[in-house]
C-alpha cells in the first residue's frame, strides 16, 4: 500500500501540464544563468589579475612583513595580523554579551517584550557601517585615547587596532544577538520541560541544558559575526590608523593593539586601490588581498551554515 501524503506546492505544480515552450521557466533559468555567469566572470577576473604576484613574490606574499609598493615589496603578514586582531577583540566582547542578552530576552522577558527587543535589534543591525565609522572617528577614538592615557599608557593617537575592535564589537552585536536568539528558540520545549521536571532551577536549566543544547547554533552565530567583522572595510578604515608594516613583538602584544595598524579590508578601502591599477604586479598584490579576504570570509560563513544545518539534522 502506498502511503498517502500531502504533496508540497513544488510537487503539485508538476501535476500540471507543461507547454513545450514555457516562457516563465525559460526566463527563470535565464536570469539564474546570468547571475551565475556574472559571478563566475567576476571571480575569474580577480583570480586571473592576481596571478602576477605569485611569480613576483611567491610565498613571500603571505610571509613577508614589509609592504612598500614603490620598492615592489608586497608582504601581507602584518595585515593578516591586523585583521585577526580586530576580529578577535570584537568577538571576545560581542560574543558573550550578545549571547547573554539573547538569554535574557528569551528566558526572562515576556513574549511581547522579547518581540519588541528583537525587532529593535534587527532595526539597529541596519545602521550603515559608515555611520559607525563616523561615531568611531568623532567619539570613540577620543574616548579610547583619553582612557589609555588615564591608565598610564602612551598611545600616539586614538587610532588603533583596539579602537577598531571595539567599534566592530558594537557593529556585530546585533548579528550575534539575533542569531543567538534563533538558536535558543530552536531548543525543543521538551528539553526545557525535562530539565524543570528533573528539579533544575531556572538558572541551572539555562546553564546545563539550554546553552549546551543550543551550542551549535551559538557557535554558528559567532562565526557569522566573525565573517562580518573580518570583511568590514569602511568603519575599520576610519579608526584603525592605516599604518602599514606593524608587526608585533609577539601575537596580541598589548602595545601592538593600542597602536595603529592595518587590516586587509582597510587596505583595500584606501587610496592604493586606485593607484595600483597601472602596475600589473602592484595591482595583482592588491587584488590578492581581496581574494584572501574573500576565501577566509566565505569559509567562515559556510562553516557557520554547515554547523547550523548539522545541528538541525539532529533534532
Amino acid at each position: 500500500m502506498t502511503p498517502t501524503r500531502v504533496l508540497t506546492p513544488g510537487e503539485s505544480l508538476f501535476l500540471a501540464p507543461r507547454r513545450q515552450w514555457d516562457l516563465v521557466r525559460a526566463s527563470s533559468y535565464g536570469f539564474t544563468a546570468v547571475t551565475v555567469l556574472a559571478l563566475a566572470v567576476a571571480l575569474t577576473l580577480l583570480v586571473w589579475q592576481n596571478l602576477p604576484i605569485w611569480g613576483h613574490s611567491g610565498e613571500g606574499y603571505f610571509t613577508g612583513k614589509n609592504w612598500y609598493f614603490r620598492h615592489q615589496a608586497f608582504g601581507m603578514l602584518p595585515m593578516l595580523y591586523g585583521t585577526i586582531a580586530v576580529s578577535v577583540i570584537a568577538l571576545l566582547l560581542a560574543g558573550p554579551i550578545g549571547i547573554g542578552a539573547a538569554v535574557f530576552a528569551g528566558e526572562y522577558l515576556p513574549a511581547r517584550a522579547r518581540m519588541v527587543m528583537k525587532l529593535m535589534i534587527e532595526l539597529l543591525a541596519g545602521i550603515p557601517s559608515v555611520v559607525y565609522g563616523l561615531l568611531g572617528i568623532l567619539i570613540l577614538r577620543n574616548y579610547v585615547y583619553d582612557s589609555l592615557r588615564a591608565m598610564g599608557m602612551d598611545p600616539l593617537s586614538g587610532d588603533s587596532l583596539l579602537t577598531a575592535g571595539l567599534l566592530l564589537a558594537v557593529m556585530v552585536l546585533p548579528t550575534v544577538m539575533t542569531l543567538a536568539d534563533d538558536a535558543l528558540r530552536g531548543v525543543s520545549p521538551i528539553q526545557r520541560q525535562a530539565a524543570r521536571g528533573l528539579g533544575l532551577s531556572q538558572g541551572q536549566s539555562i546553564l546545563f541544558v539550554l546553552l549546551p543544547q543550543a551550542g551549535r547554533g551559538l557557535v554558528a552565530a559567532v562565526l557569522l559575526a566573525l565573517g562580518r567583522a573580518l570583511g568590514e572595510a569602511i568603519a575599520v578604515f576610519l579608526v584603525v590608523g592605516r599604518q602599514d608594516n606593524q608587526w608585533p613583538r609577539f601575537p596580541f602584544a598589548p602595545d601592538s593593539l593600542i597602536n595603529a595598524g592595518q587590516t586587509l579590508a582597510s587596505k583595500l578601502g584606501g587610496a592604493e586601490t586606485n593607484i595600483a591599477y597601472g602596475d600589473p604586479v602592484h595591482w595583482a598584490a592588491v587584488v590578492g588581498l581581496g581574494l584572501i579576504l574573500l576565501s577566509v570570509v566565505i569559509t567562515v560563513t559556510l562553516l557557520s551554515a554547515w554547523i547550523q544545518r548539522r545541528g538541525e539534522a539532529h533534532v
Partner: protein
Amino acid sequence: MCRTTDRVVFVAALGCAVIACGVLLSIVAAIAIRGLPAVSWHFLTEQIRLVGAAGGIFYNLVGTLLLIATAGAISTPLAMGIALTHSYYLPEGRARRNLSLLLYALNGTPSILFGIAGLIIFVKYFGWGKSWLSGGILLGFLILPTVTVSLVERIKVLPGKYIEAAAGLGLTRSQIVSSVVLPQSMSGLITGLLLGLARAAGETAPIMFTATIFAGATFPAGVKESPVLSMPYHIFILCQDSYDPGVSAKVWGTATVLLGLVFLLSLIVLPMRLKVHEEAKNA
C-alpha cells in the same frame, strides 16, 4: 546553591542585555542629538557649498535614491528568476543545494570585494569611469541574496491547495507560476527588496571606486563618466579630513538623514513581516 546560581545567571544575562541595548540605543541617540538640529527643509533641498561646510545635501540624496532604485530594478528580475528556479524548476538535490550555497557565499562576501570587482569590470574594462549604473548594478548583486531568500521563504509557505486548485482548473505550469505563485508571494519579494534597499542605501565600499564622487555631480546625463553624489560617501569623506565645526554639524545631519532613510525602508515592511509571522504561528 541553586538560589545563588539562579541569581548569578539572571544578573549576568540582565547585565548583557542592558549593555547591549544601552550601547545600541545610545548610538542612535548620539547621532540624533547632534544631527537633528542640522536637518531642515533647506538641508534637503539645497546643494552642497563650501566643501560641505554650508548648504545641503540635495544631490547626495538624489544620488543615493538613484543608486538604490537601480539596485532594486537590477535585483528584482534576477531574484524572481533564481527563486523560481530554486523552488520549482531545479530538482531537489545537488543543483538546488549548490544554488543555495552560492547565495550564502554571495551574502557573506565582504562589500569591498564588490568595489574591487566593479573597478575592474565597469570602470576599466567597460571604460565607464565612475558611473551611477555600475554602482546600481553592484548594489543590485549585493542585495540579491536578501531579496531571493525572502521570496523563497514566502513561496515555501504558500498553501499547496492554491496550486492544486489552479492545476485543477487546467492552467499550465507557467500560467500557475505567473497567475498564482508570483502574485501570492509578492509580499515576500517586497519585504526582501525593501530590507535589501535599506542595506544598499548605506553601503560605501561598493560605490566608492565605481560610482560616486564628493562634489560636482548633479543629475547624470548618460552612463559613461556619469558619477553621482551619495550620502554614505559624503559622510565617509567629510568625517576624515575636516575639523571645522560647521562641517561637523553637516556630517551629523547627513548621518541622521541616511539613518532615517534606512530605518524608514526597514519599518515600512514591519507590518507585513509581523503578519507573516502571525500566519506562520496560526497555521
